[in-house]
């Protein structure tokens, strides 16, 4: 793709075929920051248009899922929950999970959904999956209030370790972006991807300690392999940040490394594929 010298007064844009693998151009991305903002804003605005309950859905969804899980897993199947009340146990995992799930759903179809933009105007393509991930973040922040309410109800004290939520949220956003980059680019060429995503999300949810505690997974090598799922570290970290207990230590480290690998490879793959987006989408 063309490289723009964005600093000089008269910007000169070069057109030439791109070859090989390219990294991401952060300077250019910064130049387009307003577009990132507007596309994110559009996604948020549009999501709950003509819905009576509007943004309240971002709170209702985790509440309803928590209720279902509490009935099925907490009451009927009596799954253990690290000594926490089951609703608190489930909700603390569901919030970051919902963030991840929504980001992934939206970003994987984002390029195809914005085909008219891809074929008409130039801008760094990575903005599209990026802004759909960012839009999901707003829902997450609203739903976070729920967790504090629940903690108050169950009289669970708040500690400084709650601040860990910030890097953990960032980690789950990056994880969703990483997978979103792969899937959105693949979906441009193979629409099978968007058929696959719902199943992928389902499998992924059961491969994450949401309905069951991580202690169910045997410690040692198996736990390490299990932690390659980035959401394991995030969910485990969330529970620890709010309720204490076993810190995520190695789990979180492995999960972070997995995100890093996915993200870097995702960026390169995306840049590799993006020059053909306009021709095949």
């Amino acid at each position: 793709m063309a490289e723009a010298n964005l600093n000089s007064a008269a910007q000169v844009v070069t057109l030439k075929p791109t070859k090989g693998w390219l990294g991401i151009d952060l300077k250019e991305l910064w130049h387009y920051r307003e577009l990132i903002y507007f596309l994110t804003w559009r996604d948020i605005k549009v999501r709950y248009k003509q819905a009576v309950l509007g943004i309240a859905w971002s709170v209702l969804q985790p509440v309803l899922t928590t209720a279902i899980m509490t009935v099925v897993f907490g009451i009927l199947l009596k799954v253990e929950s690290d000594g926490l009340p089951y609703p608190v146990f489930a909700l603390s995992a569901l919030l970051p999970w919902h963030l991840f799930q929504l980001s992934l759903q939206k970003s994987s179809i984002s390029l195809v959904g914005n085909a008219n933009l891809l074929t008409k105007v130039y801008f760094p393509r990575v903005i599209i999956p990026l802004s759909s991930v960012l839009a999901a973040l707003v829902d997450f922040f609203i739903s976070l209030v729920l967790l504090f309410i629940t903690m108050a109800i169950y009289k669970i004290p708040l500690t400084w370790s709650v601040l860990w939520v910030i890097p953990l949220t960032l980690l789950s956003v990056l994880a969703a972006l990483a997978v979103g980059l792969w899937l959105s680019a693949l979906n441009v060429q193979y629409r099978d991807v968007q058929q696959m995503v719902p199943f992928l999300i389902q499998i992924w949810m059961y491969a994450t300690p949401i309905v069951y505690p991580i202690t169910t997974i045997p410690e040692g090598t198996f736990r390490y392999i299990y932690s390659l799922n980035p959401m394991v570290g995030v969910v485990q970290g969330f529970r620890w940040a709010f309720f204490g207990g076993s810190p995520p230590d190695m789990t979180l480290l492995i999960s972070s490394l997995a995100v890093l690998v996915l993200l870097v490879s995702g960026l390169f793959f995306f840049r590799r594929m993006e020059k053909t987006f306009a021709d095949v989408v």
Partner: protein
Amino acid sequence: MMDSDLSILVRGIGKRYKIGATQQRTDTLRDLITAQAARIGSSLRGKNHRSDEADHIWALRDVNFEVKRGQALGIIGRNGAGKSTLLKVLSRVTDPTEGYGELRGRVGSLLEVGTGFHPELTGRENILLNGAILGMHKKEIEARFDEIVAFSEVEKFIDTPVKRYSSGMYLRLAFAVAAHLEPEILVVDEVLAVGDADFQRKCLGKMGDVANSGRTVLFVSHNMSAILRLTQDSIVLDKGKVLLRAPSSEAVDFYLNRGLSKLGERFWEEDEVPVSSVPFRPLAIRILDKTGQVSDSVRSVEPIRIEIDYELTEDVTGLRVGYYLFTTRGEPVFTSFDIDSEELFKEYTARPKGIYTSRCTIPPDTLNEGRFLLGINASSYGIRRYFQDDQALSFSVDASGAPGTHWPEPRPGPVRPVLGWEIEQKGST
């Protein structure tokens, strides 16, 4: 690095498409797997799959040109000549396969108005969003907000979701945003083909302003009069190659006269003609330009010839062969038959069987610019209609050089005659 007075420089740009990659929109994994399997299968059988060139087409090949800053360049060519691909490469939507180019300054493209409009958002919200997509900064959009709204004439509905707009309002708003974008290089593709006559006039006027304000404009259009009005120089594209770069008037002449526009001819196969037509059998109808070339695009200022070939399988009495001329909107312009004149009417009371051509010339300065439709009719008045086809052939008329084309406005009405005018001063005050 190019000279500083150049705005665009293009060297040997080529774009190759894989055949099927663009048409076959839903490539699925299954397709990929079966294709791979077929390839492995054929290589196992020793057949080497090396039809690489055959699987690809060059939409552009070895395109070279440059545009000076502040110049307006027209791009002419028939459908499929590579115009849109060229604009896509220049606006960086797609990468060239080969070659090199430089653009100085921000490129704004009006490849399609309303890009990125979201039906659920209000007019106000869409202006902000669309502006950002077209590369405007928030401050710029806000500074021009009122101007954009005024130009679009949708003030009253600015806080209504655009899905409730009429298509006209939608287009006006979309064009208004795009027109107020102020890039150093503006790329325009056929935006004027939309909207009603009034709005088209407004758009054309705005385009003229842009071209006159010292910005570089690339303008693609099928409307030769618009090309002549808005551009100084033009390039003629055909099959992905630049055939000519010349002052626009020369380039337009070259394009129209070289018959690059697709053939204005229609043949009837035997099975296309109903049995009820016997003894009349239409063979062909064609449009010829001044030089006798068959052409789909003729000029208003030159004579236009229409020929109808037909066969009579028996002698026919009182036959008249002629055509109806319609605009593409279906308004009749006129009707004419080959024995309309007194002499021919007396001479051809009966025609013996044989093959005929009825030939008609529309005198210069008759038709206005636009697309017209020819319907054919063969009948014996008060006795029988043998054959009728209301949509036998269509053709375009180009008004360049016709009266009044020095003003940048389309003129309503299907005819554009040269009329006698006198101006008389009745004294001075």
